[in-house]
C-alpha cells in the first residue's frame, strides 16, 4: 500500500490544481489578475530535493505528459519543462545545502522559471499576445504570490513525506 503513496499524492496535486481554479471565488478571477496554481511543480521540486533527482525527473515526465494531454491539449510543453526545471534544480541543490528555507526559495524560483518559460512558448505559438510588462503585472506577480503561499503551507509536510519515502527506499 505504502508504495502507492507518492503517486497518489501527486495525482491529488494534479487534480487539486484544477479544483483550485474551479472553486476559488469568481471575484478573485474576474478582477484584472490571473492566478495560475503550480502546485505540481512545487511538489516535483521538493521531491527532487528530498528523495532523489532521478525520482523528480521521472515524476516530472509522467505528470508533465498527463498535464499536457488533459489540460493543455498541446503535447510537449510541460512534458519538457517539468523535467528540465527539475534537472536544473537538482544541480542547484547539489551546490547548496538542503535546508528547508533554501529549498523553498529555490522552488519559487523554479516556478518563476516555469511561468516565464511557458509564457515565451505560448507567445511563440501565438496562444497569447500579452506584452511582457502587462504579463508581469497581471499574471507573473499574482501567480508567484499564490504559489509562495502554497509552498509555505506545504513545505513541511512535503519534506516529512519525502524524507520518509527516502528512508523506505534505503531500507528496501
Amino acid at each position, binding site marked *: 500500500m505504502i508504495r502507492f503513496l507518492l503517486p497518489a499524492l501527486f495525482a491529488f496535486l494534479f487534480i487539486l490544481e484544477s479544483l483550485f481554479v474551479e472553486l476559488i471565488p469568481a471575484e478573485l478571477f474576474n478582477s484584472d489578475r490571473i492566478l495560475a496554481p503550480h502546485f505540481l511543480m512545487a511538489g516535483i521540486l521538493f521531491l527532487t530535493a528530498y528523495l532523489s533527482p532521478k525520482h523528480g525527473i521521472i515524476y516530472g515526465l509522467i505528470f508533465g505528459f498527463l498535464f499536457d494531454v488533459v489540460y493543455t491539449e498541446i503535447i510537449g510543453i510541460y512534458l519538457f519543462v517539468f523535467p528540465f526545471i527539475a534537472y536544473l534544480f537538482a544541480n542547484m541543490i547539489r551546490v547548496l545545502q538542503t535546508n528547508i528555507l533554501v529549498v523553498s526559495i529555490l522552488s519559487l524560483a523554479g516556478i518563476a522559471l516555469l511561468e516565464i518559460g511557458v509564457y515565451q512558448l505560448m507567445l511563440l*505559438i501565438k496562444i497569447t499576445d500579452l506584452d511582457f510588462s502587462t504579463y508581469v503585472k497581471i499574471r507573473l506577480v499574482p501567480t508567484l504570490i499564490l504559489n509562495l503561499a502554497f509552498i509555505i503551507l506545504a513545505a513541511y509536510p512535503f519534506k516529512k513525506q519525502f524524507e520518509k519515502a527516502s528512508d523506505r527506499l534505503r531500507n528496501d
Partner: protein
Amino acid sequence: MPQFFLNKRLIMLLVSIIVLVALIGFSLREREELTWPEKFVKDSTSWVQSLVSRPANYIAGVVENLQDLQNTYQENKELKKRVDDMARLEAKVYSLEKENEELQEILDKQESLADYEPIQAVRIARSPERWNELIVINKGTANGVEKNMAVITAKGLIGKVKSTTPFSATVQLVSSIDPTNRISAILQAEEPLYGTIEGYDKKNELLLLKGLPYDAKVEKGQNVVTTGMGGIFPKDLPIGKVVKVVPDEFGLNQTAYIKPEANLYDVEHVMVVKKSMISVDLEESLKDSEGEEEGN
C-alpha cells in the same frame, strides 16, 4: 571540438528539444480526432476528476449558499420589483410566440437556424495553466457531443467543443485567443450589423467584434448574438453587450468591445448545443444521393 559533441547531456538536451518541437507541431495542427492514447488518458482522468470534483463542488455550493443568505433581504426587494414586469413580458412573449408559429405555418417553414437540441452537462475540470482557457465536461461522443458544437450556459454563449472522447469533452472558452476561434455575429442595432468575434482582450476581459462598417452607429449596451451562418452555431445565442467602439488600425472598419453575457469563470452547468437544421439537411442530402446512386 569532439569532446563538446560527445557530451551526453548536451545531446540529450538537443534530442529532447527536437522531440518537443515535433510534438508541439503534431498537436497544434488541425486535428479531426485525438489519438487513442490521448482519449484513453483523458477518459480515465475525467472519471477520477468527476469523483473528486462533484463532492468538492457540492461543499463549495453549500458555503456559497450560506453567504447568499446574508443578502436575501435586499435581493428579495429587488426581485419583487422585477416580478411585476415579468407578468407583462410573459403575456407578450406568449402572444408573439403564437403569432410566430402561425406565420411560420402559413409560410410552411418548419425549421429555422435558431432550432437546437441542448445536451446538459456538468464541468468536471478546468485547465489550471490558464493560457488556453479550457474546461472538461462530463458528456462525450457516447451522449452525442461532437467537435465544434456550441456550448452555452443559461445566460449565453461560452465556447465550443474542442475535442471529444467517448465519455468527456473539452470545451474551449471564447476567451482563449485562437486564430481559428471565430464566431459570426450580429450586432442588434436599428439595422443589424454583421461582424466576427475575433480575439479577446485579456486585460479588460472583453471580446472583440471586428469588421463592422466604419460609418455604422453603434451604441453602448446593444446586444450581440450569433448569426447561425457560420454553419456551426445556431442562430440567436446571446454573446454579450457592447461596451465601447473604436476604429480599427486602418480606419476602414470599426471594432466593438463586447462584455460577455455569461460569466466565463463561474461555469458549472453547461449545455452543449446541437444544431437541428444542419443535421437534418445532411441526412436528407445523403439519402438523396444514395437514392440517385441506386437509381443509376
